C-alpha cells in the first residue's frame, strides 16, 4: 500500500509531460516523478506522441515554429485528468503563451476549437511541486534524503508560477535533510534559454554570482524545479570542480530510506 494513499481527490490518472530536454538529458528526473506519484497511489501515463512545448522557439522569437507544438500538446493531453510537468519554465510557456498562440492558430484556420481546448486544459496543467502542494495539498511525501541541500527558486517558478514556499515546504518535510537557504534566492542564475549562448558573457557573469552564493551555503546539493537552470548552474559547478551536485527536486522527493546514498 502506498504510504500516502490519497484521500483528497482519490486516485488520479496523471499524464506526465516530461519535456524534451528532461526526456533527452535528464531521465532520472522523469523516473523520480513517476516514483513519487506512484508512491502516493496515483497512476501515471505517458502519452507517446509528446515532444516539446515550444518554449525555446516561442521565447527566441520563432513563434511560427512553436505554433504547431501547441496543437500537438493539446492533442496529446486534452483527455488528461491532470498533466504534471517537472519544468517550471515549460509550464510558464504553456500557461502564459498558449492561449494567444491557440487563438492565432485558430484564426489561421484548420484548428477549430483549439482556444477553447487550451482554456479547458490549462486548469489541469501543473508544475510538479505545484501538483503536490496545491492540487494534492501535501508537504510530506515520505522522502528521505540525508544531505545538505540548498534550493534555487527558478525565476519562472518564483515569479511566473508563484510557487511560493511550496517547494521549500516539500523539502522541509524530507527525512534526514539539512536544508540551507540560498542567499539572493530571487536573483536569476543567467540561463534564459538561448540567452546563455547569445549573451554568453553576461550569462556567465550572472552564473558566477549564483555559483558563489551556492558555494557559500556549504551545500552538497543544489536543487530546483527546473533542470534547465540546473544544467547551467551544474555545468559551472562541475567546471570549477566544486564537488557540489545539482539534482531536480523530484529526485530528492523520490529518495527513500534504504536507497543507496
Amino acid at each position, binding site marked *: 500500500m502506498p504510504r500516502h494513499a490519497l484521500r483528497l481527490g482519490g486516485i488520479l490518472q496523471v499524464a506526465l509531460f516530461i519535456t524534451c530536454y528532461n526526456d533527452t538529458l535528464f531521465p532520472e528526473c522523469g523516473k523520480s516523478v513517476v516514483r513519487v506519484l506512484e508512491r502516493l497511489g496515483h497512476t501515471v501515463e*505517458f502519452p507517446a*506522441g509528446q515532444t516539446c512545448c515550444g518554449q525555446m522557439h516561442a521565447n527566441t*522569437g520563432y513563434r511560427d*515554429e*512553436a505554433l504547431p507544438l501547441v496543437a500537438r500538446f493539446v*492533442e496529446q493531453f486534452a483527455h488528461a485528468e491532470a498533466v504534471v510537468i517537472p519544468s517550471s519554465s515549460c509550464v510558464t510557456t504553456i500557461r502564459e503563451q498558449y492561449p494567444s498562440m491557440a487563438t492565432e492558430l485558430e484564426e489561421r484556420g484548420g484548428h477549430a476549437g483549439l482556444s477553447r481546448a487550451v482554456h479547458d486544459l490549462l486548469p489541469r496543467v501543473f508544475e510538479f511541486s505545484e501538483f503536490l502542494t496545491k492540487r494534492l495539498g501535501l508537504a510530506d511525501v515520505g522522502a528521505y534524503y540525508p544531505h545538505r541541500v540548498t534550493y534555487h527558486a527558478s525565476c519562472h517558478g518564483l515569479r511566473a508560477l508563484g510557487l511560493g514556499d511550496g517547494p521549500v515546504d516539500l523539502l522541509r518535510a524530507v527525512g534526514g535533510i539539512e536544508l540551507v537557504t540560498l542567499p539572493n534566492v530571487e536573483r536569476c542564475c543567467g540561463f534564459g534559454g538561448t*540567452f546563455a549562448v547569445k549573451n554568453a558573457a553576461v550569462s556567465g557573469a550572472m552564473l558566477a554570482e549564483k555559483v558563489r552564493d551556492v558555494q557559500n551555503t556549504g551545500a552538497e546539493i543544489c536543487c530546483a524545479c527546473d533542470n534547465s537552470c540546473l544544467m547551467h548552474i551544474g555545468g*559551472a559547478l562541475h*567546471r570549477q570542480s566544486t564537488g557540489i551536485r545539482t539534482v531536480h527536486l523530484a529526485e530528492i522527493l523520490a529518495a527513500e530510506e534504504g536507497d543507496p546514498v
Partner: protein
Amino acid sequence: MLDPRTARPFPIVAAEAVRDTQMRGNVRHATEVIQNKRARVVAERGDWQALREAGKRLREHAIRNMDAYLLEFERNCTRAGGTVHWARDAAEAQAIVVKLASEAVGASAGTPTAGRPAPGEVIKIKSMTTEEIHLNGALEAAGIRPYETDLAELIIQLGQDQPSHIVVPALHKNRQQIREIFRREMQLPELGETPQELAEAARQFLREKFLRVETAISGANFLIAETGGVCVVESEGNGRMCLTLPKTLITIAGIDKVVARFRDLEVLVQTLPRSATGERMNPYNSIWTGVRPGDGPQNFHVVLLDNGRTDVLADEPARQTLHCIRCGACQNACPVYRETGGHAYGSVYAGPIGAILTPQLLGMQHAQSLPYASSLCGACYEVCPVKINIPEVLIHLRSRVVKEQAASISGRLHPEALAMRAAASVFRSERRFRAAQRAGRMAMKTMARDDGAGQPWIRSLPGYLGGWTSVRDLKAMPKQTFREWWEQRPHRTADGQDRNKPGVPDHPTGTTKQPPASVESA
C-alpha cells in the same frame, strides 16, 4: 554619444562591460542600495498591488485615448498662456527648441552680432527626452551653452560621459570618480569626497547659473490633459529653480507623458517616488499651468515629441511600453543591467525598459539585439509600478526581429534560423524526435570525456554553442532517454495490473490512455 542607430550590438558591448570590474562594482552597489530602499517603502503599503493595478489602468486609459487627451492638453495649456508645439521626430524637436532658445537667449543677451545671436546660455533640469533627441549637441551647434543642473546630469556633462540610468544617470560612477571630475572641471584641487563636500561644490557651481541664466529647458513627468498643467518631480530642488527663476521656460515631453485627470496623480505620485528612489514622496513636486503674470517664467512653451511613439501605439501587444512612467525600478531590478551597466544598451533608455522601448522608437532594424538582452527572469515586471509585462513585450519583439530577418535570404540562412527550423521539424514528429535523440547521443559521445568520477562530460562545444562551454561543462546524454526507460519498464496500475499495452505511435489523437510499447526499434 548614445545613438542606437550607430551602436554596436548588445552582446559585444556587454561582453566588454562585464570586464570593467570597477564600473560593475559601482552599478551593483548603487542598484542594491536603491532596491533595498524601494523594498522597504513598498512593503509599508498594504495596498501596493492595488496601486499598481490603478496605475496600470489609468495609464492604459490615457494611452488608448492619447489623441483626444493631447488635444485637450493643448487647449488647456494654451488657454493658460502657454504655447504648444508638435514635433514629429528628433530633428523637428531640435529645430523648435533651438529656435525658441535662440530667441529667448537673443532677447536676454542683447544685440546679435553680424546676424548671429550672441553666445547664450540655458539651464536644464534633467530630462531623458532631451537626451533622446541629443538636444545638447544641437544647442551647442547653435552657439547656446546648456548647463545641466541635476547633480547626476552635471556629473555626466562635466565628465563628458553618457547617462547610464534614467533616474540616476551617473550611477556607474562612484564618489572618488565624481570628486576627480569636480576637481578637474570646477578647478577645485582641494575638494574632498564626502557627499556634503561634493554637494556643496555643485551648489556653488550651479547657484551662480541659476541667478544669471534666464532661459530654462525642462522635461516633464506628466502632462495633465484636464488642466493643461505640467508636472515634474525631483529630489534636489534644482529643477524647481529652473522652473521658477528664468524668464523663459521650454518644456519638452514625449506624447506618452499625458494623463487624463489631475487626480490621476494621486496614484502616480505615490508609486513613482517609491519605485524610483525609494522615497515615500519626492521632496519637490512642481506643477505649473501656463503663465502667471509677475510670478515665474513669462514665456512658456511645451514641445510635444512623437519620435516613433505613435508607431508603438499601433502595435497592440507592445503598446503597454508607452505606459512607462520612467521610474527606473526595472533597471535596478534587472540582473542583466546589474552586470553590464547602462551604456551597453546603446541608448539613453537602458535596462529592461530600454530593451523594449529603443527598438520600437527607432524601427526594428536598429537595436535588433536589445530584445534578446534579457534572460526573461521577470524581475522587471514584478517591480514595475504600472505593471508593464516586459517579458511579454520582449518575446513579442523577438518574433518581430525573426520575421524581419526571414524577409532576407541571408536572414533565412543564418545558422540560428536554420537550427531553429530544423529543431521545429524534429519536434513535430515523435519519430524524428527519437531519431534526433539517438543522433544527439552519438554526437555527444564523441565529444565527451570521463571526468575522473566515471561521468562523461563535454568541455568544449563547436560553433554557436561554444558560448555554453566558455564557462560551463555539459553532461553528456545518458545511455537511455526517459521514454526508452518508460517503454521497457513493467507497467502497473495502482491495483497491480499490467497496463503496458501498445499505444498508437506518432498519432496524436488525444485518447492514447495506455503508454505505448516501444514504437520503433531504437
